[in-house]
């Protein structure tokens, strides 16, 4: 991590302007190459899913079952992460293709796209890592930072985090309902009920598709197809959980208090996004399979830039961070995952005492302006 110099408020705004410039540059250069990328990827995903399901129909041959399940799991991961997540962010809206547009896309997971867009694009991306605002901090169920009050229930969190990994898609769908806000009156129970119905309908469709329709179509291969689909769904869940937790919860990712938001400038917003996010190192295929959430920093700085551009701008973002003396956290998947789990285990126990970053100014004096 570069030097001890900390950005002054002036520098912070300069940092923001540099990022704005970078963003404008990318937007001006969007074109056929990018459109070709997403269309090709969708075509590959569709073919993978088809061949996966076809292979599973022949799953009395064990290798066909393994290959089919693997193809289907890969297809589901691509669909949810590099395609669905990013399309729903509006990253491809600039093409004006109604088939690849944030307002029309529905994805292969339990969360209805609409609800997810609200809880993710708006709540999480706007209030990233702000305690009491960003519900993604531990998905409201885990204690992942010392600033969250300890409660004996957290003793069980290593266990239920593992469970959450397995059933991640349902976890997200229920989490989107913001049920914990109902008792305090911050959420209208009627609205929650309507959303619950939408979630239930979506889950029903998903279950019918993977656990009834396709197995029935397979006739004698009913059971292997059902098991293959289930394995693919579980694998996708665990993978998504792993990548997403590595994005904000490893050592190095910071959390903030609400007063940090008061009068927050563009530059400060960028800095908060940067400090709250961690990248994962890897090759091109890994980045695609992670939906380019391995470039979590770039994604949080520019949530609506097409994901195929993150790898290209990453070295420039990193160079900017170095120039402004800001940390740029990145590590291997193994290291980041280890770090996340260490945190989940440590935070299951009470303590340690620490103040959120707004109160530890000398190092990162982003509060200087407020």
């Amino acid at each position, binding site marked *: 991590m570069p030097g001890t110099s900390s950005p002054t408020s002036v520098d912070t705004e300069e940092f923001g302007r540099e990022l704005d410039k970078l963003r404008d540059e990318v937007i001006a250069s*969007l074109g*056929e*190459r*990018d459109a070709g990328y997403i269309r090709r990827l969708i075509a590959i995903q569709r073919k993978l899913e088809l061949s996966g399901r076809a292979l599973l129909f022949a799953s009395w041959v064990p290798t066909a079952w393994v290959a089919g399940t693997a193809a289907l799991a890969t297809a589901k991961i691509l669909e949810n992460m590099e395609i669905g997540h990013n399309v729903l962010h509006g990253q491809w809206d600039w*093409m*004006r293709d109604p088939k690849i547009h944030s307002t*029309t896309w529905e994805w292969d997971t339990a969360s209805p796209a609409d609800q997810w867009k609200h809880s993710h694009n*708006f709540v999480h991306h706007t209030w990233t890592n702000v305690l009491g605002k960003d519900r993604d901090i531990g998905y409201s169920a885990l204690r992942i930072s010392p600033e969250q009050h300890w409660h004996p229930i957290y003793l069980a969190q290593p266990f239920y985090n593992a469970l959450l990994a397995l059933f991640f898609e349902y976890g997200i769908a229920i989490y989107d309902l913001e049920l914990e806000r109902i008792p305090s009156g911050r959420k209208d129970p009627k609205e929650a009920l309507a959303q619950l119905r939408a979630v239930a309908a979506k889950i029903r469709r998903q279950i019918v598709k993977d656990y009834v329709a396709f197995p029935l179509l397979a006739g004698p291969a009913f059971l292997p197809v059902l098991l293959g689909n289930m394995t693919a769904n579980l694998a996708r869940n665990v993978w998504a959980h792993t990548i997403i937790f590595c994005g904000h919860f490893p050592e190095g990712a910071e959390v903030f208090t609400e007063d940090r938001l008061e009068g927050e400038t563009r530059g400060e917003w960028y800095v908060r996004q940067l400090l709250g996010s961690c990248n994962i190192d890897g090759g091109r295929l890994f980045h695609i399979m992670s939906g380019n959430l391995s470039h979590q920093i770039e994604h949080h700085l520019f949530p609506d830039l097409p994901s195929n551009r993150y790898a290209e701008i990453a070295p420039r973002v990193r160079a900017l961070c170095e120039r402004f003396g800001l940390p740029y956290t990145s590590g291997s998947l193994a290291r980041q995952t280890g770090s996340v789990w260490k945190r989940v285990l440590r935070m299951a126990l009470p303590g340690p005492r620490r103040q959120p970053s707004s109160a530890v100014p000398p190092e990162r004096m982003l509060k200087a302006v407020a």
Partner: protein
Amino acid sequence: MINPLWAAGDLCGRVEAVKAETVDAATLVIRPGRGWIAHRPGQWVPIGVDIRGRRHWRTFSLSSAPGRPDGCVTITVKAARGGFVSTYLVRRTEPGTVIRLGRPEGEFVLPEPLPPRLLFVTAGSGITPVMAMLDGLLSSVRAVTGPDVVLVHSAPERDEVIFGGRLRSLAARCAWLRLHERHTRSEGRLRPADLARLCPDWTARAVWVCGPPAMLDEIARHWTGPADRLHVERFRPVPVPMIGGSGGRVRFTGSGREADADGSTPLLVVGEGAGVLMPSGCRMGICYSCVARLRSGRVRDMRTGQVHGDEGDMIQTCVSAAAGPVEIEL
């Protein structure tokens, strides 16, 4: 709700051939995909073209009659000066390109049964819908009983007449068709007086006119026949009579997008620029494909200059500009 564009977005066509008509005009032969509804000669169709990864919609008259043996339809495009889409279509489109098609629409068509005497007055690329009608007549008219058709067509020079060769040979072959070609660079612009000379009974005929705004307006002013016998097709909206409304911030509530709009850019274009899926058709205020609900604010009708709009009004985004901050439910 199903987005109207969705259906349009689904309907594709493949460009089979691009044939130069003049130095700056070309005919695109398009094979429509499944779902295409046969058009009536004279109708237009919205065409969506991907240029540098972005989809652009424009309207073009179909220049062929339906029922071609090869199953294709054609549009004939003139590269407008500085025209983004038209230039791309004329100069850079390769056979094999896939384009999007909307639904054929428009009332600039021949009635059933045919009136006995017809007059077409066209200029430049305004010949395109009329070419489709002539094509249609050709296949349906028997020479002896056919109607009496006069075509008065203007173009700068003989070489610049779109479909020049075809029109001349058609006129030579068909007794029912009289062609008057006017080359405006040497003979000057066609005036209503010229029309009366070339076709003395012109106001007694059923008339179809398509060309530059000035010509259309002049003919409409001199028309003395019944209004329902004069058919006018405009390729461009009537010029804005009043300039400069205030403009303002436009919020698209369905998609959560926002953009600043000046007082002379249609909300349709503002929305497209912001990445909102804007339904559209003719893009000039005639088809109502683009209507959207106004949640708040007021808009200026770009054809009349009138500022209007109450909460819940359905407005045509292609001819409405922002008059102050506006919220549209799209």
